[in-house]
């Protein structure tokens, strides 16, 4: 995997939000427009049409009433003179005029000017003939009046009735068309609602998947980095160990032999000089210094990489080191061993050894105690080691634990084992380390 600088997902999320907002926004605008159109259709066409139709029905009803009254007059159904019908006609005429005025105000757009003019003309003609009727009636010519009703008046009335029926039908048709249009708008809005839902869902889906993909990539990168770091730490430790080993060997082999030779030669020269001869004392002092240096070099070599580890294995090395440690620091170490140590590979051995070394150094440095406990247990498949002191314990804050503990952790990880730093209940620290003892004995 290539290591790209991780891109922020905010951009993707913003983009998704933008898409969603745009979809909702455009849909809102669209819906508002459609609602406006619906309102227009509803109030301007349908409502108006209905109110107009109500007036037309009222006119139709009045015209029908006129027809009934005219029939009564023509038939002489009531024992009253024709003129007695005048107030009834007058009322119907007033109602008609009122209805016609209202109707003219509500007149739908489908009405042509010619139609409106025709309506007015026919009504005017009708009332003119009706006036003729009253004239004949007042002149006492009922027969002529009846004839007039049967011929011209009824014809005009029938024309009116037809005309109004036609207008009503026209209104109905206009209304039906408007209703159809309204239904189409409803369908369109519904369809667009589905589109909106789809768009929003898609935006959510894309944004979501991009974010998830991005997260997965981040995790992969993080774990990769962690692997790399582990490897690096392992290498550093290995290099260090190699260096220590080389240094130890060099110190032991080169300086040790040189110093031994120097000591031998100085002894030989010293023995050749007579007792009490001048310089003999100086030589002895130089030889002493050389011997001391040799001891120091040997000690350093052993500290860097105890040869006992290579020669006798981990178990003996631990015992040897603990002896050395007690001698050098004066801290009493209670050592406890259980199980039988199998063959332990170099790699495991050096890391376990270093962990013991570091832990005990920490006891000396931080615990301010005179006693420590070391427990080692071996099993065929793993070994466990516990270093315990009853001192001041681990620092409260983990960052204060220092580089030593990080090193121990790195080593435990290199071994494929685990390490645990515990505060003891009664005060002090327990370091517990566990390492598998496979054939390879870990990575190192």
């Amino acid at each position, binding site marked *: 995997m290539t290591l790209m600088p991780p891109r922020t997902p905010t951009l993707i999320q913003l983009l998704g939000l933008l898409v969603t907002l745009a979809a909702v926004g455009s849909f809102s605008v669209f819906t508002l427009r459609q609602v406006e159109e619906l309102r227009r259709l509803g109030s301007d066409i349908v409502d108006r049409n209905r109110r107009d139709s109500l007036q037309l029905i009222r006119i139709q009803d009045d015209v029908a009433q006129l027809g*009934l009254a005219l029939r*009564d007059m023509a038939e002489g159904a*009531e024992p009253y003179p024709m003129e007695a019908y005048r*107030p*009834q006609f007058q009322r119907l005429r007033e*109602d008609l005029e009122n209805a016609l005025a209202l109707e003219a105000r509500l007149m739908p757009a489908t009405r042509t000017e010619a139609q409106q003019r025709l309506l007015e003309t026919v009504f005017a003609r009708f009332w003119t003939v009706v006036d003729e009727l009253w004239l004949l009636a007042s002149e006492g010519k009922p027969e002529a009046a009846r004839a007039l009703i049967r011929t011209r008046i009824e014809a005009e009335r029938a024309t009116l009735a037809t005309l109004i029926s036609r207008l009503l039908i026209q209104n109905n048709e206009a209304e039906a068309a408007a209703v159809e249009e309204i239904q189409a708008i409803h369908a369109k809005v519904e369809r667009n609602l589905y589109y909106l839902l789809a768009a929003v869902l898609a935006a959510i889906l894309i944004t979501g998947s991009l974010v998830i993909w991005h997260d997965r990539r981040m995790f992969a990168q993080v774990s990769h980095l962690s692997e790399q770091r582990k490897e690096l730490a392992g290498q550093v430790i290995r290099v260090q160990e190699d260096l220590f080993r080389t240094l130890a060997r060099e110190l032991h082999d080169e300086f040790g032999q040189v110093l031994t030779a120097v000591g031998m030669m100085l002894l030989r020269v010293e023995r050749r000089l007579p007792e009490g001869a001048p310089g003999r004392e100086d030589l002895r002092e130089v030889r002493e210094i050389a011997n001391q240096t040799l001891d120091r070099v040997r000690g350093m070599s052993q500290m860097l990489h105890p040869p006992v580890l290579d020669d006798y294995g981990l178990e003996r090395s631990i015992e040897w080191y603990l002896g050395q440690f007690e001698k050098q620091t004066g801290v009493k170490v209670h050592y406890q061993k259980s199980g039988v140590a199998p063959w332990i590979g170099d790699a495991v051995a050096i890391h376990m050894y270093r962990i013991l070394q570091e832990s005990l150094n920490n006891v000396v440095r931080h615990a301010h105690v005179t006693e420590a406990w070391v427990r080692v247990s071996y099993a065929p498949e793993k070994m466990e080691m516990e270093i315990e002191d009853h001192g001041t314990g681990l620092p409260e804050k983990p960052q204060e634990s220092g580089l030593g503990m990080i090193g121990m952790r790195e080593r435990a990880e290199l071994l494929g084992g685990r390490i645990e730093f515990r505060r003891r209940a009664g005060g002090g620290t327990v370091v517990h380390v566990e390492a598998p003892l496979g054939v390879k004995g870990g990575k190192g």
Partner: protein
Amino acid sequence: MLRREFLAGLGGLLAAPAFGQQGPGFRFTDVTRAAGIDFVHNSGAFGKKYLPETMGSGCAFFDYDGDGWQDILLINSMDWPGHKRRRTPLKLYRNNRNGTFTDVTRAAGLDVEMYGLGVTIGDYDNDGHPDIFVSCLGQSRLFHNTGKGTFVDVTRSSGLWEHEGFSTSAMWFDYDRDGLLDLFVTNYVRWTQEGDIFCSFDGNSKAYCTPEAYRGVTCWLFRNRGDGTFEDVTAKAGVLDTTSKSLGVTLLDFNNDGWPDVFVANDTQPNKLYTNLRNGRFLEQAVRIGLAFSEDGRARAGMGVDAADVDNSGLVSIIVTNFDNEMMGLYRSNRDGQFVDRAPQAGIGQATRHSLGFGCFFFDPDLDGMLDLLIVNGHIDESISRARRNVTHAQPPHLFMNDGKGNFRDVSRLAGESFAAPKVARGAAYGDFDNDGDLDVLITTNNGPAYLYRNDLDNGHRGVRLRLTGTKSNRDAIGAVVKFEASGLAGTRIVKSATGYLSQCELPVTIGLGRRDALQRVTIFWPSGRTEEYKNLKAGGRFVVEEGKGLKPDRA
């Protein structure tokens, strides 16, 4: 939510004693049987469902023998020709002055069969004895009261002969103020047995038709010539209108000009308001002043009608009963003479939506000085519940109590079990038959019995009863306006004949006073133009006021 529930609970708590439990202060006790009223209406129905069968019939309280006790007249229809089963004449019951009545039909000479529907009673010849006009299917009848406890059919000689129609309500009144009662007769539709139309709710069985099926017909106005005869002035007076399908008529003076106007309730046609032009002519103005239609401009099925000064404002309110699925109309006039239907706001609209109302009148059963409202209901066809689930043939009445501010609440259920029971009611009238000062109620049902309910008032209220006798005015004082004042109470009442549907209430005026001790002032505007004023009438008193001669206690 919690708050609303709390408030609702609180409201219920407060409302319960005010509206739920508290009675109206009186009960209507069914005394029909005890009083000896055994009348049963015969519609003549034999299965053909002729339209007139479902329309009748009316009733009246009147004092035919002048003894000061209200007698009862119940109009009857009859079997159809060719389907004769029994004789069913109208019935006259004389008040025995002890809470019971005696059937005096035969003795009074009224044992006559006719297809009667409505009734109006007035002393048209001013002889001191009330005469009876019965509106009929076919020829209506005029019965002259001889003053000896008998009646004589004078239809033929009266000039009312040869006026055959489907006459429904009728009303005596003096439109030309000549001191003689004239007669207004409403006609329903042009119906004949041969021309009967098949109507149905379910498409199979025949049902009674609504009037759309038939052509309208004019109402009639007859002027009293003063010689025992009448002149048909329908045309001359400008009343002719062949589009009307009229069922109810009432007298009112909506413009307070002292001249009687006429309101006609039309079924599925615009109502009519005939304004008296004071020259023997009328001008129909219902559309112009807002009485013709419902507030949404529809002509409703007007049945019964009454008009009165309901809120004691001096302005008239008009109740019109309508079909089910229609609210009743409660029109109230405003100061500029326009009428507005206040039924929904007044608490009457919703309450009457499912009722098919016929008889109705404003009266004061609790004597609190405010006019309350009785509406009796009943559907036209027994098969209606098959067609519409929430509508029944028999329907309970509405008894709306007036809170004094023009708002009403229905207390019929609290007024008595029999009273509140569903009925196929048609006519209704009030009158104080036991002379105890409160108003009793008579209800007729279609093809069923009549019911007499005695008012048992227990709220301690009292009133003043005035019996007006005209001298220069018509003797019944019909059209007289009584203006009254008591402490914190003032109003007007009008004396009139027909009320509601096919029926007539008693003529005496009852003015409820609540717990007041006296009526401070009464002003009477006689139809003759004379005005008289009387002061300090004691509560509980019954008085006779004779025009020009003063006031004295009623002897009865």
